């Protein structure tokens, strides 16, 4: 077993966890650079929440070496807890306390001096657009407001690393976008984010690195672009004004496929700039005039399907 180098926000090697004879995590390695957004992407039941629960000290792994914020998680969980904040899948707020009381509770538990705590709480409520609802019970909040309160409570302690377990699941598109903007602001301020999601769009938009978790194993890891390049399906589509152009171009690109009705030619390629430049140069050399050009790259949905054999948001049963 290799050791986890320090200096990373999160490093885990050989993470294993079973419930009964069901292996939930089956040898998972995770590395998250400081100040980045790392996304664990996977369908329901893939083990995402279990991974977050282990990395955030909530449950113990059966095996594996874990360092979070420079501390050995098994040896010094309290030190890890001082550096992290967790916002769970199911909003962990106290519904018998008002929004503001929930925030002040976090301030007390973080041992902030009373006045500093009050100031910080007021600022966060303002920033998360919860000031008007501060005196009300979270029971009366919308889903988006509850998640914002949940995250605001996490931020009272000013954590360096934040775990967000499916922060936008079940939210309407507008609330989702608000949440994304908040996450982007946090990273801009230097916070490390560990994000789990079953939404490809979310990982695509937010994450610096994405690990695809399926059946307790990481089946692929890289930036969104790297993942997309892993699989075939990218192509350049050329549209011509008249049939002559299509004929000429078809001879230039052997292996391409033509559609005489729509006057389009599909040229396979990985969608990188060099490939595109090569296509344009070949067209120039043959003096073909192109009416329109589109580059299609496989989206994460294609990647996910290719890697796991099922799509990300359906097939819940398959992955269990």
């Amino acid at each position, binding site marked *: 077993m290799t050791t986890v180098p320090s200096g990373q926000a999160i490093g885990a090697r050989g993470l294993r966890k079973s419930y009964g004879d069901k292996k939930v995590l089956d040898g998972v390695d995770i590395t998250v650079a400081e100040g980045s957004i790392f996304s664990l992407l996977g369908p329901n039941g893939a083990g995402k929440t279990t991974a977050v629960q282990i990395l955030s000290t*909530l449950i113990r792994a059966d095996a594996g070496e874990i360092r979070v914020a420079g501390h050995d998680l098994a040896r010094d969980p309290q*030190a890890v807890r001082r550096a992290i904040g*967790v916002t769970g899948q199911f909003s*962990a707020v*106290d*519904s*018998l*306390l008002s929004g503001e009381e929930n925030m002040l509770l976090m301030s007390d*538990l*973080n041992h902030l001096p009373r006045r500093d705590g009050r100031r910080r709480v007021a600022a966060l409520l303002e920033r998360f657009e919860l000031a008007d609802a501060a005196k009300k019970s979270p029971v009366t909040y919308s889903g988006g407001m509850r998640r914002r309160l949940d995250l605001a409570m996490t931020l009272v302690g000013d954590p360096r690393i934040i775990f967000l377990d499916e922060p936008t699941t079940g939210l309407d598109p507008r609330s989702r976008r608000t949440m994304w903007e908040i996450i982007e602001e946090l990273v801009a301020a230097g916070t490390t984010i560990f994000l789990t999601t079953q939404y490809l769009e979310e990982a695509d938009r937010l994450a610096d690195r994405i690990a695809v978790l399926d059946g307790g194993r990481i089946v692929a890891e890289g930036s969104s672009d790297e993942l997309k390049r892993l699989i075939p399906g990218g192509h350049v589509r050329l549209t011509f004004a008249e049939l002559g152009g299509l004929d000429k171009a078809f001879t230039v690109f052997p292996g391409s496929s033509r559609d005489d009705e729509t006057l389009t030619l599909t040229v396979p390629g990985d969608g990188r700039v060099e490939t595109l430049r090569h296509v344009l140069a070949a067209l120039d050399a043959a003096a073909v005039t192109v009416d329109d050009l589109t580059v299609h790259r496989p989206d994460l949905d294609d990647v996910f399907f290719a890697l796991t054999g099922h799509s990300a948001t359906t097939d819940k049963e398959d992955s269990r």
Partner: protein
Amino acid sequence: MSAIADSTTMLRRNFTHSVRYAAMTLSGLLLPVLMMLMFVYIFGGAIGPAISAGTGGGVSYIDYLTPGILVMAVGAGSASTAVSVAVDMKEGIIARFRTMAISRGSVITGQVVGSTIRTLVSLALVIGVALLVGFRPAAGPVAWLGAIGLLALLILAFTWLAVAFGLVVRSAEGANMASMPMQFLPLVSSAFMAPDLMSSGIGWFAAYQPFTPIIDTLRGLLLGTPIGNSGYLAVGWCLGLTLLGFLWARSAFNRDPRR
């Protein structure tokens, strides 16, 4: 240091919960008083003479009844503790607490101390109303101290048991069910009736279940009736149940939460 600060914070949270759950808190406080009034004014006429005759004519029914009601109030208090712990565990906020750098036991300490304070208020209420309707304890200061000490031991035992129930069952309904024995076993004890006046099987059970020596000891301390070896049994039961409840609650709380 931080353990005390965190426990205080949790106690404050627990207190706010009692205020927000006003209906439940109030019914918890009033139930024992209502039970007492019911037994005195509805059943007292029938049971009272038998009790009086059994004790050689010296003890009025309200005097006989009050120690039992006090023990019952402790049971009722522990039921609400079990429910509030179970509800709390479901809230998900406990998971948040577990990932924060706070004293591990502070959540439970807050519950135990909060519950103890609520039960003490309830006991004071019972004693106050009992005095109004004719309770005349014969106890001197030492006996009163002994009675208060025994009640405190009982609160400790029941609260820890209740916390363990709340941690294990994880639903309000389950917690209420689990704490049923603490609420209803007093009915089949010497609380309202002398066991030797009950039908033989039930009487045997009533004589040997833990509530009976506890109630008899309390009665002895408050009324000056003979205690016999009930005192040792009462203290033994309380200490045993406290230890059981504490160890059970601790192991349930330290276990990894279920998914």
